[in-house]
């Protein structure tokens, strides 16, 4: 279990992490979601005691990180940066970390095997591809067989096979009852792996919810209808007890009904339809909406640094 309480990090005037309070629970994958620069990595570094919080507190199983005896046996982390000496072999990289925490060398062979790097264990890390580097980082996280695992953007730079491997790994770790905390800037990635979701934007907590709740609340489903007899269609829909909204391109969006019901209703009134399609707003859209709101809130209160224009936020999303 990881508990954050009012965790705050300020760099001069800039607030990177703003009063974060949430708990990461065992047995599930908790996704940590936010745009690039939202403060995810800073938060993770504070959890590991690498960065000192300006205010607030973070505890690992009720204890401060620096009080943990052999911390790698409590919490293993893959941080975003590669963080391996290029001239050192994968085996020696893991061995020095293992020795510092009293982990037997046999465990180094086990984790190398688990991530599929046994064949290149004696090779220098500088020859490793991005994917191999990620695997080495994951091997380091697994080294102490910890109850808590933290991954910062683990699928970055991986090929489809590697991505699939990481998703399966995270789910199986959680199924073993471990705490799994994984960051991403991609909602689609989280939707596939996470059971619980913590969303931050500009260092602030925006949502702390189960994945199912988030999907239910944020993925609006509706039916798109287009007809040359638009006015009549509106009347008919209204008569059928359905509310339709203009979509802006001449089509209508009908909430709370199905394509079948609308199609049959239109047929009964002999209306011509040019389009009849069920739609679902993507989670990605819901997510952009959420972070965009946080920006508006910032600008509205005028607190802290001036917020960047909203368009910039959207742009950072589509790029990611």
């Amino acid at each position, binding site marked *: 279990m990881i508990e954050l309480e009012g965790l705050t990090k300020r760099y001069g005037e800039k607030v990177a992490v703003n009063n974060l309070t949430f708990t990461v629970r065992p047995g599930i994958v908790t996704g940590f979601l936010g745009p690039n620069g939202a403060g995810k990595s800073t938060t993770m570094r504070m959890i590991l*005691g690498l960065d*000192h919080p300006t205010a607030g507190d973070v505890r690992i199983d009720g204890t401060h990180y*620096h009080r943990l005896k052999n*911390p790698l046996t409590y919490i293993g982390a893959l941080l975003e940066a590669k*963080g391996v000496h290029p001239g050192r072999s994968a085996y020696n990289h893991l061995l*020095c970390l293992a020795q*510092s925490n009293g982990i037997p060398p046999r465990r180094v062979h086990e984790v190398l095997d688990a991530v599929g790097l046994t064949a290149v264990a004696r090779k220098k890390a500088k020859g490793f591809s991005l994917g191999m580097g990620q695997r080495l980082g994951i091997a*380091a996280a697994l080294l102490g067989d910890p109850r808590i695992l933290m991954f910062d953007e683990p699928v970055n730079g991986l090929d489809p096979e590697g991505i699939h491997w990481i998703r399966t790994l995270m789910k199986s770790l959680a199924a073993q009852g471990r705490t799994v905390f994984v960051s991403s800037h991609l909602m689609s990635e989280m939707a596939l792996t996470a059971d619980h979701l913590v969303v931050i934007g500009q260092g602030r907590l925006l949502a702390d919810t189960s994945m199912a709740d988030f999907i239910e609340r944020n993925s609006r489903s509706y039916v798109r209808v287009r007809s040359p007899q638009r006015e009549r269609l509106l009347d008919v829909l209204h008569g059928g007890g359905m509310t339709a909204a203009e979509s802006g391109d001449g089509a209508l969006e009908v909430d709370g009904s199905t394509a079948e019901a609308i199609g049959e209703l239109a047929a009964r009134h002999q209306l011509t339809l040019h389009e009849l399609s069920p739609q679902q707003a993507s989670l990605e859209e819901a997510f952009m909406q959420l972070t965009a709101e946080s920006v508006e809130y910032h600008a509205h209160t005028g607190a802290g640094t001036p917020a960047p224009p909203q368009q910039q936020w959207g742009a950072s999303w589509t790029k990611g």
Partner: protein
Amino acid sequence: MTATQVVRSEWTKIRSVASTVWTLSLAVVVTIALGMLISALSRNEFDSLSAQDRAAFDPTFISFAGMSLGQLAMIVFGVLVVSNEYSTGMIRASLAAVPQRGTFLFSKLAVATALALVVSMATSFATFFLGQAMLGEHKASIGDDGVLRAVIGGGLYMTLIALFSMGVAAMLRSPMLSLGILMPFFFLISNILGNVDATKKVGRFLPDQAGSKIMQVVQPPDDDTPYGPWGGLGIMALWVAAALVGGYVLLKRRDAQ
């Protein structure tokens, strides 16, 4: 978390990178080769020296002449041992594994210093004996007054240079910045400050100027240095202590990146 575990881990780190081998080998080879060369040249020069210069002729000190260049490799060794952690990003993994930053830093320094001490002592004795062999009839003997102290002192001097560099690198973090300051300082600036009359009085309190006094056996007749060989090494040790305290305080206070 025991210090023994961390020391073992740091030993694995230091023995598993190539820079350890090449920096230390370079320190040994350059110190000995240059010491032998200058010893051989001094032997040929001896007959043309004035009576005053002959009185100040210090065969022990001459055989250590290679250290002025060899110490630069020791500086690189000391800087890389510490700053590698930062330039590679390994520091985050290291401090996540060992959050007690004092234990981390001083285990690293202990391992690197022990290795530097072994290499430096061997180098010092080797350069002395090989240098004396080059000096022929003008040579000093290890049993002469103050010679053993000078040879052991030479080993301590090189070790302290490495340790000082580690402290500076712990403060500055960047290998390029650390080397960019230490190399010209020890190779040029310190020598200039120590030899120009106007700055001599201050210059001789610099770490290398004060520390190298330990390798001197024959006092030059006009020498008015206010400290003896061990006093000089003590001054150097104070510089080293200051660099280490600075490095420790900054490591403790800063975010790890």
